[in-house]
């Protein structure tokens, strides 16, 4: 009987965990939908900015802005890693941190001054474990990053870059490709390589009146475009985290169901064999009495 009691206990435990993983999966699904909506709504802004950039390009303007130019030297680099605050999201943080570590080692081998900024408790604890000093930590970003908070960080990077304190900014985050596909990437977002992505063919042929002038608008729009792109990284990271969690929890839930099945089978077998042995004992006892 001892064996079957252990099995019953174990099955109960697995069932409880299955309940938890199922709930977490549902929560992650709901959060993913919300994060996704935010990301699609934010896309309108980026699209419009790109449109205006294309319009400016139509005005025969040479694009020159401190944020677009590659600095002569590349000594001071910053790496921003966007991880999650919570665990139980599969390989999400692991993939990001692996990439971040590789990039950090690369910079270290080149003898650069690295400024490391990490968002998310998971990334922070991993850096602590690796004994890598983090210059700036953020833990306030959950699944709803607000533009004002992100803007603050972006403005600081822009100011540092223009004043020459920073020569390059790399960001490690989960890039959203579509709902079934996200991958961790390292992107260099300062200096801005290509402003609009697809400027060619974007010019609508309309002759605009520029107020105050095309070059002055350009001066303002480059930081705005950078900030929009920076913000998008945060939104992508939030969406990626929820998707990763949903997938991980789904797998965990399915695994728990399989375990319940196999434990139930084991339990039934144990019970059956016990009944059989009891029966044979009774029959044996009755036969002995005759």
């Amino acid at each position, binding site marked *: 009987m001892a064996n079957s009691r252990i099995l019953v206990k174990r099955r109960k435990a697995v069932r409880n965990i299955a309940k938890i993983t199922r709930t977490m999966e549902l929560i992650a699904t709901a959060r993913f939908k919300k994060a996704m909506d935010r990301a699609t709504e934010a896309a309108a802004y980026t699209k419009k900015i790109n*449109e*205006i950039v294309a*319009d*400016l390009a139509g005005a025969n303007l040479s694009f020159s802005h401190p944020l677009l130019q590659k600095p002569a030297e590349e000594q001071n680099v910053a790496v921003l890693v966007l991880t999650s605050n919570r665990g139980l999201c599969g390989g999400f943080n692991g993939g990001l941190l692996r990439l971040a570590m590789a990039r950090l080692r690369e910079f270290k081998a080149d003898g650069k001054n690295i400024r490391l900024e990490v968002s998310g408790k998971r990334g922070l604890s991993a850096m602590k474990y690796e004994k890598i000093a983090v210059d700036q930590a953020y833990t306030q970003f959950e699944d709803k990053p607000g533009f*004002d908070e992100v*803007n603050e960080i972006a403005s600081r990077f822009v100011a540092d870059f223009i004043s020459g304190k920073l020569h390059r900014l790399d960001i490690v985050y989960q890039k959203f490709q579509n709902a079934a596909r996200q991958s961790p990437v390292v992107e260099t977002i300062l200096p801005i390589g290509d402003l609009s992505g697809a400027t060619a063919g974007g010019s*609508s042929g309309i002759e605009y009146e520029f107020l105050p002038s095309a070059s002055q*608008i350009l001066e303002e729009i480059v930081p705005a475009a950078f*900030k929009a792109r920076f913000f998008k990284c945060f939104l992508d990271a939030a969406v990626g985290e929820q998707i990763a969690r949903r997938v991980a929890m789904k797998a965990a839930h399915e695994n728990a169901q399989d375990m319940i099945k196999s434990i139930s089978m084991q339990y039934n077998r144990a019970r059956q064999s016990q009944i059989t042995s009891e029966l044979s004992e009774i029959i044996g006892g009755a036969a002995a009495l005759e």
Partner: protein
Amino acid sequence: MIAATELRLVLVTPETTLLDQSVRSIKLPLFDGSMGVLPGRAPVVGRLGRGELKFETSEGSKSYFIDGGFIQIKGSVVTLLTNRAVGAADIDAAAAQRALDAAKALPATTDEQYSTKTAADEAARSMLRMKRI
């Protein structure tokens, strides 16, 4: 040519598209003063200032506070891109007053500091002004 009668206002912030509706006329703050837009306006790309965005719809007029950004007028569509937009009813007068006090306390020893100070000051003042009306 038939006179244009259509005008659509789209107000976009980095987080969301706040407004997308047809209007009769728009008054908006440009970097150097306010500008009015009626249907049939020539195409414009411009820089926005801080202040009140006011527009007339068939149901009456509405106003928002907007904080910098860009405007693009293309055909009958007026697109405003701004970092921050607050509906007139949602403006918190006490918070604006605090922002104004904070802006006043900012140092202004360099050009950069001066421009951030004036920007913050202007934003807070125009918010308060909207609240008083």
